[in-house]
């Protein structure tokens, strides 16, 4: 790689600059589907656009595909400006939420459609169709009609139809949402493997945070047309940049408070009657922050275990739910705030109304700057 690049050119493959798209609602309002989005995406990354419905994730995907225009901003792919190209000239392919298989064409013709309109000769076409179908685990079904396939098979055909064209970016618009849970989890792993094998950029849209955490190299959390956070699944989960991300990804216990003391090793945050210790060293006295603890970061203390080196919260047990390997404990603090803890092991002896000692490590306490 050229030394002239100060940044990593690999993560510059797909660039979105200040993308803005507003829609007028029939009631006369304005919906900011995209409100100044910036993204840098690498050549072979699995990127997930995650957010609640209406956050702009599908709009962004449609703009990259060419089905929706941009009010202002710029998108480049492999140093080529995308927005001037009409949809059929863009080197990207989409897997649609509804699969959008052509009902009057056989599976083979569906998969070969892109190659055919690109002028690929029949012998090569037939071979590539076969390879693509084999890749998605459906070898030898070229002759069938889409209506003769199950939902999961249709999904795979839609995938084969897109990857057979070797796009620079594969866009996936909530492709797994119509599948049942078991199949969906299987497809998540297959999709990730396929992406690794092909080595092309996947841009995957979903509202399912579990799906995003399972598959992605990096996740873009979108809310109200803005990027809330862009990071690896671990970063997003353990170091959420905002209250929204903390609430949207997984379960979280968030306490609002004020920094009352800081030193070289961290700070003390006063959250009502609670004093929470964090190892965040970037806090100064008097600043308002939110501190977050994931339910699984608590451990349950009983008479036999000591809390050496740990912080302890006292709460009253309100409900204990067995969720398989763990117990989910819903507890109430003296302040009235409800917290959730996920603990391992036997909890049969616990009784509702009983006071519990919940221990946590100050290293796990993540702080989010409070926004007012």
């Amino acid at each position, binding site marked *: 790689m050229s030394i002239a690049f100060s940044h990593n050119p690999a993560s510059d493959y797909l660039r979105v600059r200040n993308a803005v798209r507003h829609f007028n609602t029939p009631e006369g309002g304005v919906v900011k589907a995209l409100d100044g989005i910036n993204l840098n995406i690498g050549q072979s990354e699995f990127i997930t656009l995650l957010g609640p419905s209406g956050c702009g994730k599908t709009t962004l995907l449609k703009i990259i595909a060419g*089905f929706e225009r941009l009010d202002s901003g710029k998108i480049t792919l492999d140093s080529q400006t995308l927005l001037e190209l009409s949809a*059929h*000239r863009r080197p990207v392919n989409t897997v649609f939420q509804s699969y*959008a298989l052509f009902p009057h064409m056989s599976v083979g013709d569906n998969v070969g459609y892109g190659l055919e309109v690109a002028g690929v000769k029949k012998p090569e076409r037939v071979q590539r169709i076969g390879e693509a179908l084999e890749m998605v685990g459906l070898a030898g079904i070229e002759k069938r009609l889409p209506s003769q396939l199950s939902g999961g098979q249709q999904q795979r055909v839609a995938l084969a139809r897109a990857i057979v064209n070797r796009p620079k970016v594969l866009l996936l618009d909530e492709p797994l949402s119509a599948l049942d849970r078991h199949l969906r989890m299987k497809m998540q792993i297959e999709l990730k493997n396929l992406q690794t094998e092909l080595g092309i950029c996947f841009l995957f849209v979903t509202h399912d945070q579990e799906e995003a955490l399972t598959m992605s190299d990096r996740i873009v959390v979108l809310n109200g047309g803005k990027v809330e956070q862009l990071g690896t699944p671990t970063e997003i989960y353990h170091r959420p940049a905002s209250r929204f991300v903390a609430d949207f990804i997984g379960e979280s216990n968030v306490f609002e408070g004020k920094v009352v003391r800081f030193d070289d090793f961290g700070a003390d945050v006063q959250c009502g009657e609670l004093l929470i210790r964090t190892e965040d060293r970037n806090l100064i006295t008097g600043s308002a922050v939110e501190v977050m603890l994931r339910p699984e970061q608590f451990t349950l203390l009983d008479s036999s275990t000591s809390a050496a080196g740990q912080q302890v919260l006292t709460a009253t047990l309100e409900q204990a739910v067995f969720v398989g390997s763990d117990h989910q404990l819903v507890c109430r603090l003296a302040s009235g705030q409800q917290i959730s803890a996920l603990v391992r092991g036997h909890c049969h002896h616990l009784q509702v109304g009983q006071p519990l000692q919940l221990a946590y490590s100050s290293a796990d306490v993540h702080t989010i700057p409070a926004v007012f």
Partner: protein
Amino acid sequence: MRALSRETTALTLLLAPVTLFLAIFFLIPLGIMAVYSLLEPGLYGGVEWSFYHWNYGRILGWADGFIEEFDIVYLQVLGRSMGLAALTVISTLLICFPVAFWISRLPAKQKNFFIFLITLPFFTSMIVRLYAWVLILRDSGFANQLLEWLGLISEPLDLMFTGTAVIIGMVYIFIPFMFLPIYSSIEKLDMSLVQASQDLGASPFTTFRRIVLPSVMPGVIAGCILVFIPSLGNFVVPDLLGGARVVMIGNLVEQQFLYARNWPFGAALSMVIIAVMMLLMAVYLFRVVKADSNR
């Protein structure tokens, strides 16, 4: 088993009225026509009950051998009628297809308004609407006045009582019959298929040819049948707008029954129209069945 037979009984009872109605008012008259077409015409209308094949002979050109000479004028009229009906189908198709596309893209409220406009003519008598066209097309009519005012012509155009006038009238009458089936098939068209085609690199033209057209074809064919059949047998439009100069097969039938009082010949002409239509339908159905079995 019992529930099934009860269902069958209910079905029979429900279907009985329409079956009876069709039998009495469609099949029996059709049978009468078929029989009449093979009888000798009575001197003052009506029929003589003796077998007579010259009705069909006359249509095919061989006259009865006494007064008339070999002349295929009736086949020519049939041919011209089919030509006019085909032109009507093509014109309505060319008008309705883009309009249906355009309307299907509008917001729901405007859509319903335009559908209402298209079906609006059904609320008025066809005769009244055709007389309106007489007022528009005649020498001193609206069309000629407008063209003269615009300076495009100095002499009034000869529009009335021409094939053009008949086509205009037929297209006007049959537009809703073409529009509605096409519109409903376009309305059902899954836009994500169009997007998928574009996404896979197909140009707008290829997308139209490979994806849109096959999807809306059933509606187009239904529209063509719904327009072709009534235009082929139509006699009101050529009567009012074509006058004596444009005679269609429907006019021939009308004349034979009402003026010439040759019922058997009129019946034979009707049978020929029916045969032509059934033949076309059979060709179409055969192709559909073949296309289905190829899948």
